[in-house]
């Protein structure tokens, strides 16, 4: 039985944590919020220098050729630091799609540049204020030409390329689009978490290349979502743990009625509930990491379980962290709101909690496994 990360992976995680601390931690997140930036350029530059965007890219395309487990430990630290960088969109979603579904030519052209940062990618799905399905998809491709619009696309201003889920003649397709090509219009959309940026991206006869097979785009999309769900869940676990740590620290420092508020059972039990949620989420994420890294057929179940569990944990820890801080927690000055907002945005990025619960129960119906 070895449901644990290796010493090398733990070392990488430790280095990642120290790196984000050294680079300023939450002050970067605040800077992006306060100055209405799309991301933290300096921090992103350093992440590129460290080679993290190429963790999963094979060495023949200039990447580090490591596995998903290395990505999991980095994700947890990004989540803990609320790092304001386009890592999830470019790495978990875009890069993974190119690795899995790109033609040899596309891989040769794109992957090395993802390592250097010349190419930054994103992934465009949503079209309106509801969960998208195969039949509601309206953004369409004819020949190689894409028409329609996507909303809530992360990091689209910085991104040079996007994977776009579109309706094709034989069913949904994943399409690679160069965002500098003709007919692309990108506009910023306001959102709840100003440390992350989302855009409307409209396509007007925009040229694109097919990723994977015609007609199997929906399955490819679902698979990429499942993979990314595990990685997003690690970010959420990192965020939950940090929110719990903050609440704990404050409960030790703050006095009321002549004693530390952490000595009251009302606070203790609140924090114990947070600990329980984080522990369940973390264990589910380890299961997800195993399924992801071993390419198990259990991935749909494991991904949905990690995702739902981590979404619940981060939302609980983020809101109860504010509650533990009392009035201070509701001020701009204290950091609690950064976690509250990030927890909401992370819970929606790949589809809401309800949509992942639906995937989870569908997977349970198929596999019926809990030994």
């Amino acid at each position, binding site marked *: 039985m070895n449901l644990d990360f290796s010493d090398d992976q733990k070392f990488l995680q430790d280095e990642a944590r120290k790196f984000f601390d050294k680079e300023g931690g939450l002050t970067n997140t605040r800077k992006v919020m306060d100055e209405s930036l799309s991301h933290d350029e300096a921090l992103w530059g350093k992440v590129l220098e460290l080679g993290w965007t190429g963790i999963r890219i094979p060495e023949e395309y200039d990447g580090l050729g490591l596995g998903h487990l290395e990505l999991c430990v980095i994700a947890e630290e990004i989540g803990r630091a609320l790092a304001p960088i386009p890592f999830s969109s470019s790495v978990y979603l875009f890069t993974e799609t190119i690795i899995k579904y790109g033609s040899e030519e596309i891989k040769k052209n794109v992957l090395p540049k993802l390592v250097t940062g010349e190419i930054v990618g994103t992934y465009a799905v949503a079209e309106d204020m509801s969960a998208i399905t195969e039949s509601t998809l309206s953004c369409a491709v004819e020949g190689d030409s894409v028409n329609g619009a996507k909303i809530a696309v992360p990091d689209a201003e910085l991104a040079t390329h996007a994977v776009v889920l579109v309706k094709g003649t034989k069913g949904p397709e994943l399409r690679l689009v160069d965002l500098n090509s003709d007919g692309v219009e990108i506009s910023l959309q306001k959102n709840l978490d100003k440390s992350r940026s989302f855009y409307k991206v409209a396509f007007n006869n925009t040229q694109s290349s097919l990723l994977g097979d015609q007609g199997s785009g929906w399955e490819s999309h679902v698979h990429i979502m499942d993979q990314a769900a595990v990685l997003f869940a690690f970010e959420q676990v990192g965020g939950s743990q940090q929110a719990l740590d903050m609440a704990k620290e404050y409960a030790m420092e703050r006095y009321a009625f002549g004693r530390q508020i952490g000595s009251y059972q009302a606070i203790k039990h609140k924090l114990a509930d947070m600990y329980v949620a984080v522990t369940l989420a973390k264990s589910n994420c380890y299961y997800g990491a195993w399924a992801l890294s071993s390419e198990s057929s259990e991935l749909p179940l494991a991904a949905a379980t990690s995702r739902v569990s981590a979404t619940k944990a981060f939302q609980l820890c983020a809101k109860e962290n504010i509650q533990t801080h009392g009035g201070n927690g509701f001020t701009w000055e204290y950091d609690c709101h950064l976690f509250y907002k990030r927890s909401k945005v992370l819970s929606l990025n790949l589809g809401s909690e309800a949509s992942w619960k639906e995937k989870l129960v569908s997977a349970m119906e198929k596999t019926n496994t*809990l030994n």
Partner: protein
Amino acid sequence: MDFNDTPDQAKFRAKCKEWLDSNAKLKDAGKRINVESNLEELIAKAKVWQKKKYDAGWAMLHWPKEYGGINATPIERIIWGQEESKYDVPGSIFEIGLGMCGPVMMQYASEEQKERYLPPMAEGKEIWCQLFSEPSAGSDVAGLRSKAVKDGDEWVINGQKVWTSGAHYSDYGILVVRHDPDLEKHKGLTFFFVDMKSPGITVKPIKQITGTAGSGAGFNEVYFDDVRIPDSQRLGEIGDGWKVAITTLMNERLAVGDAKGADVNEALSLAKDKDDFGQLMIKNQAVRDKLADWFCEANGLKYTKFRTMSALSKGEAPGPEASITKIVSANKLQAIGNFGIDSGDMAGMLIDEEDGMSSFQAAWLGAPGLRIAGGTDEILKNIIAERVLGLPQDPRADKGLPFKDIPSGK
């Protein structure tokens, strides 16, 4: 990451399997497990199985070699438990003895006493119980009031213990009592072992909310009326009772208390098979939402256990994560029981004439006990907050006071 045994563990598992295969039958998956309703038969069968294990060296794996064990690692104990649980064998009535009483005897009893008491305990000839909780000392177990008064070479015990599992069939028990109410709460306690057949001991099974009493490893009240215990049966120094009790409880840290009974798989099967509101329950969004939540909990506990085992497997001390097990599983059991009962709508409360209670009804009725036994939800949350997260203790109203001056209500 993988879920495989190391070569050594695989070898050990194969050895367990080989012996179990030739000495027991695998459980029949489709069949309901036969629960022995007759207590004497249950004990007789359990004793035969224990003796068989003892003769072959499987009875007390974790005990040191000098006391007949093999010094098994925690992971080996888990592997044995995993394998044994696949077979149709009697439930153990020896766990308290082997897990708690044995180790405390090894540490504190005289050589002569160890020779006299440990082998019959391991062999299953003599059964042991643990006498800690009292009517006015549950969560605050150090607040116990049973008295020990020294009389020559003997101690005279008066008082009452409660929630003593198996006291009605036990031969010996370990006991913590108050020798001096003028001392502070934790300082006035002394630890003994006692012959349960001593004059003055009365055991009364507790009738629980399930309506049962004295069945299986049921709970008891144990009354001490001028019971005499020789001073030679004292374990530890006078006044060290709390320290010895804590050592005893530490020996049971591995027993993480997964609440057994109807789980998410049963809820899923029910939802797939049964109609409600004119359609299969599984089609109902509210049902799906609950199934997802319970799966996250059940699966989270399963892999939490795997993480603990991974640490043990590498010879590392496990993290504190196992501390969530009972809180989560007992509450989940209660909720799933409730769900199963409610699926019967107006008739959900009816008990089947032939089959008796459904697994959901049994879960719902048993779950309140599981949320209390072995540490209430509230005490376990305090433990997580104080020992895992490091939050300060509550200010205590009894601190520094002689025990007799502590406010006690009724």
